[in-house]
């Protein structure tokens, strides 16, 4: 009886999932790969013959420079997220259950507002006549407004603000699983706080750190609207280059190639993550 009821439901779900993957994941990606090996055409955007010119263009020193600067800003963002997120997640796991849920809820609430809107809000705070400068001046900490908006720092602040929850959540998951008895055992065996941290806590939470780094680093290179709004269209990310190539320069093959590079970088990180997880797993056993 139950299996009969389940059968059409199961089929429907499978069709939905496979249909979704096929049309909204596989097809677009194939289109991007296809576009990347075609020739730029001013009239139709892309045309035959097939070639690898777009990939060759990626090694132009200019784009290497953009990529490195983008990587630098993404790495700074990730580092700051880690420095804030790690103790945050730790503290979160120590809070009584009931309140933990509330705090996680509060962490997620900002996602209900569009990130573009939140970035504009950040602009109002960082502006020369903005909230932060006015507040600092009224308490007398500074006499001249600081120039914060349209700087590299503003871009990094924006990225950290948008991506911090993606660092905290996986870290919280590993801290939540951290067994109290292991820490006590370490203590009983004579390890100090620092030794316990270095030898027990860090290795145990490393998978969470890696997951967090992955969730922050790559998106940080793609959020093109953050440099547009907070960086004054300077301090470009790889995402800006992709957007410019598609919309302004109309070089689709190159835009597609750059986007594939970003995907490959993500795949590489995931691969590294799996490798390290396996290693940690073996050591743990």
């Amino acid at each position, binding site marked *: 009886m139950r299996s009969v009821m389940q059968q059409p439901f199961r089929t429907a779900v499978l069709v939905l999932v496979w249909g979704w993957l096929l049309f909204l994941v596989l097809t677009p990606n194939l289109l991007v790969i296809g576009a990347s090996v075609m020739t730029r055409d001013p009239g139709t955007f892309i045309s035959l013959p097939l070639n690898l010119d777009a990939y060759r263009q990626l090694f132009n020193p200019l784009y290497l420079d953009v990529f490195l600067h983008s990587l630098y800003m993404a790495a700074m963002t990730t580092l700051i997220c880690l420095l804030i997120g790690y103790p945050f997640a730790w503290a979160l796991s120590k809070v009584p259950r009931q309140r933990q849920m509330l705090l996680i809820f509060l962490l997620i609430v900002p996602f209900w507002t569009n990130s573009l809107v939140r970035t504009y809000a950040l602009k109002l705070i960082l502006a*020369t006549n903005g909230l932060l400068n006015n507040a600092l001046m009224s308490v007398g900490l500074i006499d001249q407004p600081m120039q914060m908006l349209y700087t590299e720092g503003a871009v990094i602040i924006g990225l950290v603000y948008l991506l911090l929850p993606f660092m905290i959540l996986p870290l919280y998951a590993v801290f939540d699983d951290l067994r109290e008895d292991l820490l006590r055992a370490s203590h009983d065996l004579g390890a100090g706080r620092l030794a316990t941290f270095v030898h027990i806590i860090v290795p145990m939470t490393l998978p969470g750190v890696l997951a967090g780094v992955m969730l922050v680093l790559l998106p940080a290179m793609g959020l093109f609207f953050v440099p547009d709004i907070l960086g004054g269209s*300077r301090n*470009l990310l790889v995402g800006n280059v992709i957007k410019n190539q598609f919309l302004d320069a109309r070089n689709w093959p190159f835009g597609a190639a750059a986007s594939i590079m970003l995907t490959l970088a993500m795949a590489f990180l995931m691969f590294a993550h799996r490798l390290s997880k396996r290693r940690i797993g073996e050591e743990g056993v």
Partner: protein
Amino acid sequence: MKKLALAGILAVGLTGCSSDDPQVLNLYNWSEYMPQEVLDRFTEETGIQVVYTTYDSNEAMYARLKLLDDSAAYDLAVPSTYYVSKMRQEDLLMPIDRSKIEGFDNLDPELVNLDIDPDNQYSVPYLWGTTGLAVDTADVDGEVTAWADLWDERFEGRVMLTNDMREVFHVALRVLGYSGNTTDPDEIEQAYEKLTELMPSVRTFNSDAPRMPYLEGETDVGMIWNGEAVMGREGLPTLEYVYPAEGIIAWLDSFVIPKSAKNPEAAHQFISFVLQPEIAALISEDIGYATPNLAARDLLSESVANDRASYPNATDMINAEFQEDIGDEAMQVYARYWEMLKSGR
């Protein structure tokens, strides 16, 4: 393929029902380039709902129109001068039926029948304007009279440029004494070199609303569109619009009907509506750009008609240069230097 077929069925379904529903005009326009009041009055008068979508660069508009070629959503767009000729040549536009347009004769004879579109077969001028210098006189000592003044050391970190490749290069090219429409790679490279010297002074690029960085106190001097300067003065009375000695950048934006328009009838109606002197005057007074409609010029209030920012006099327009289509090859050269410029820190 299946997806396309599905989209087709959907589209047919949608257009199928729309015959009884209120008519819709899809207007694709620059941001902050049409007062809401005009749209409301059009709907009131004709019963046609206006769906208003905006863009902030000709490039974005062009790409979108080109992509939506088959499923087309827009009935009316407003490209700048050189994009009219580009789109006309690429067969993206529908001829405008002059018999359905009322009030075409109100337009300034000097702004119709231009090379970009002989006899205005495909375009009807909407507004024209200039890109010049903005100076916040409250924060800037001394005179600023030329584009070259932007390179002055005293403006370090205080300069704003529009986020428009052609305009920014136009400025540097004029400072070097070249045409803003050059296609010579050497001249473009020299302009790039010149602009790299300016970059330390540049605080931000903005083409969403170029008046905002001045109003927010982030920048004191730089580029601005004249209408933005007029609107900006309301919040910042010390914002001054200056016609640079090397010559101002001029442009003309025109209504065009994309070939794929679903409701060209309504598009014609809207063009006629805007050509009414009273409506054209309202638009010019509200957003500060100059109307090419001579009958509307007579209706403008004294203060607007005599506002040099909106309506330059003959000496202001000495050395003025209209942007022209420079062809795809030169565009690629500009685009490469533009990215180099913005990624260089």
